[in-house]
């Protein structure tokens, strides 16, 4: 694989209509890409894949998925200068570097890319699909008319057994080794004879998607080996940091203080905690009230969250002082803890305005003994989680559903379900505790003062 950094000279994709828009990504292109494009293209594709993941884990059906994929693709993968195909290929290969590095990453990438390909392929017109088969020289042989006649009655039987329309002289069938179409064989949805399955062209997606998957699977392992042996050394200053950061990158708004226009008053805190905080912050908040203390991890997680919610520095100091003070006295608090709070708001030291933690970061943290931070959906035992959800007045059935998601490690989906159950309305995926809070406020407090409403829409009206 060859990534050369240079000026952004692009190879013309010449006669792009003559070839299919889809690709098996068999070989890396020898295009030249700037480092910015390298990263940006990858990020855009990642947004598509994450969007798809979200939809899949919510059990969306195939028609919805297809429409979603087309939407996502249009939203993120279009380029201003007609080099869509280049962006597609480049972004895929960059993400291959990112996601080849462990078994879990490979599995995720394989699964998402296969699903993406399947949906894109399925939505192509039949002629485009045929063109793709030709371009890629796939070994699916259409059967001749004489072959068709000799097995026609069997094909008709299969169609009728599935309550599908019977094939006629116009339908194309492909002869394919049965190993290539396990799902069709398993469901007895296809006629097989001497190890060959006779697959109608409508089932073509299965075939091609299967090929895609197996090619990508092998390629990923090879990429990993090459990365470990050659590339990561050579590229340790240039590509490696980008690649390593991409796999855990959070992709949404970062809720640093500048963007949030709403303010939060100290006396409203308890109410807000009860109604609008996600479970992780609820837990921290009430533990703080209970024990008048939180360890470092908890202070960071909750403190930055509150900053993102709109708590001003003076109010934050007052809040933490009133709690900690009850246990250790105000002087000690001012001496040992106040500095850190000011530091979080960017008023001390190197003056970095720290951003509140995203779900990703919180889920990956490792709370120890005496800690209360982390993601409850991940870090609580089932019993404790049940109790916590129960205290939010959630019914048994919804709690079971949430726990099911937790068992399958879909922590953020579990949090979304909690949101939906407590607010009685749908939400898009939760990726950040402040996003939870914002969504919640939108629902529970729909009437915003005029200035604030204008401020919130400034990004869309200003073009």
């Amino acid at each position, binding site marked *: 694989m060859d990534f050369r950094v240079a000026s952004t000279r692009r190879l013309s994709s010449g006669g792009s209509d003559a070839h299919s828009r889809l690709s098996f990504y068999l070989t890396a292109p020898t295009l030249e890409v700037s480092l910015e494009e390298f990263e940006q293209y990858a990020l855009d594709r990642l947004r598509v894949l994450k969007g798809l993941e979200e939809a899949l884990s919510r059990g969306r059906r195939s028609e919805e998925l297809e429409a979603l994929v087309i939407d996502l693709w249009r939203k993120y993968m279009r380029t201003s200068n007609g080099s869509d195909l280049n962006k597609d290929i480049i972004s895929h290969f960059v993400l291959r570097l990112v996601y080849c590095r462990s078994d879990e990453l490979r599995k995720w990438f394989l699964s998402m890319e296969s699903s993406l390909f399947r949906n894109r392929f399925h939505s192509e017109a039949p002629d485009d699909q045929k063109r793709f088969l030709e371009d890629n020289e796939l070994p699916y042989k259409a059967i001749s008319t004489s072959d068709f006649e000799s097995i026609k009655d069997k094909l008709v039987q299969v169609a009728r057994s599935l309550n599908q329309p019977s094939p006629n002289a116009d339908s194309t069938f492909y002869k394919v080794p049965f190993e290539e179409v396990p799902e069709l064989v398993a469901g007895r949805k296809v006629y097989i004879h001497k190890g060959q399955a006779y697959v109608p062209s409508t089932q073509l997606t299965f075939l091609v998607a299967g090929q895609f998957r197996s090619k990508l699977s092998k390629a990923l392992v090879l990429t990993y*080996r090459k990365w470990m042996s050659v590339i990561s050394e050579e590229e340790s200053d240039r590509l490696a940091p980008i690649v390593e950061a991409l796999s855990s990158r959070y992709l949404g708004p970062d809720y640093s203080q500048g963007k949030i226009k709403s303010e939060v008053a100290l006396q409203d805190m308890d109410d807000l905690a009860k109604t609008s905080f996600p479970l992780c912050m609820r837990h921290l908040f009430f533990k703080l009230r209970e024990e008048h203390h939180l360890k470092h991890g908890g202070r960071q997680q909750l403190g930055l969250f509150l900053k993102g919610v709109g708590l001003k520095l003076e109010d934050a100091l007052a809040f933490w002082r009133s709690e900690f003070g009850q246990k250790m006295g105000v002087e000690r608090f001012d001496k040992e803890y106040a500095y850190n709070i000011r530091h979080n708001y960017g008023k001390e030291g190197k003056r970095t305005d720290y951003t509140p933690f995203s779900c990703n970061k919180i889920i990956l943290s490792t709370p120890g003994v005496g800690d209360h931070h982390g993601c409850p959906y991940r870090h609580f035992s089932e019993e404790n989680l049940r109790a916590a959800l129960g205290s939010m007045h959630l019914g048994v059935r919804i709690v079971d559903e949430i726990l099911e998601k937790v068992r399958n490690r879909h922590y953020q989906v579990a949090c979304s379900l909690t949101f939906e159950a407590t607010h009685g309305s749908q939400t898009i995926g939760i990726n950040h505790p402040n996003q939870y809070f914002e969504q919640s406020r939108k629902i529970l407090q729909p009437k915003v003062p005029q200035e604030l409403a204008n401020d919130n829409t400034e990004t869309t009206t200003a073009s």
Partner: protein
Amino acid sequence: MESSIRDRCPYKIDIGAVYNVDPAKRTAYASSGSEKVFAPVERELVFDVDMTDYDDIRFCCTGADICLKCWPLMTIAIKVLDTALREDFGFEHILWVYSGRRGVHCWVCDVKARRLTNEQRAAVAEYFRVYKGNENNTKKVSLGGSAMHPSLLRAYVEVLRPFFEDQILSNQGLLQFEERYGKLLDMIQDDGIVAQAQDRWQSSRRSSETDVSVARWKQLKNLLESGKHKGSGLRRCVEEIIFSYTYPRVDFEVSKHMNHLLKAPFCVHPKTGRICVPIDAEECDRFDPTAVPTVADLIEELNKGEASLSNVAQNQKERDISKTSLMKSIELFRTQFLNPLLKSCKADVENSYTEKLHNTQTKLDW
């Protein structure tokens, strides 16, 4: 290997997969840092049909017992699966083995079969799954659509229907008593027909005659025929009933995983002492599980018996074998299965060698 088996004198031999790494050294590759993961590379495609999976439809025996009245269910399984594996999937090297007590094992040894992934094995096993459900639903076979899949149709016409009507009905007295025919009637979704059948049979005094099941089945078929126009629920009813009582029931988990261990042919079954002999699929109608030699029988034969002198170049081992009733089984194993398989493996090795040779030769051209 023969000498090491003799030395260890194993109680039983189970066969699993061929792995990419010596299994004794597998822990060395367990850490995720290494590229190589201990994984199976090849393994025969296997099926396990066990009589206990049919307990809800046989009334002559229960549990681990078998007799000649229920054994036809195994015969059916062999015929249906063997034909499908050969005709539909194109496999050739298939060995059927008596499991020693109450079932049969099937070993498919073609190269293609050995290299199937777990997913593909699951697909093949699922292809044979017709009976779905548990004791909670009464109708466990659902043949939707206006026609049957060709594989099922072939099985029905060639095997299931003849066996059901000629043997199973009377062997099992399926319609003889109320508990039994009640089960069958539960599969019919037309209350009117069910009621009619029940009335006729409850009041009949013929329950002691052995062909009462056959006669009653004829009556039921007529009723169902005449009711067909009423709706699709009855359209496939006759077929669905027959499938429920006959179609092979394969153990899904055994077939699906490459790492599942299965007892080797010619082992002694620990509970019955019977030898796991191969079954000739062409002659499986005549296989009698109750006449399979036990290890005790063999010992007796070895001690007393007379070697057959028909084969001139015999060593001691062959002479011993010929003294026993196992000889026919071993002959069968060799001629029908082992020799063709060896030939095909040799051909494969030669082919891949010549291919490799050809590739290196072509690479040298520039």
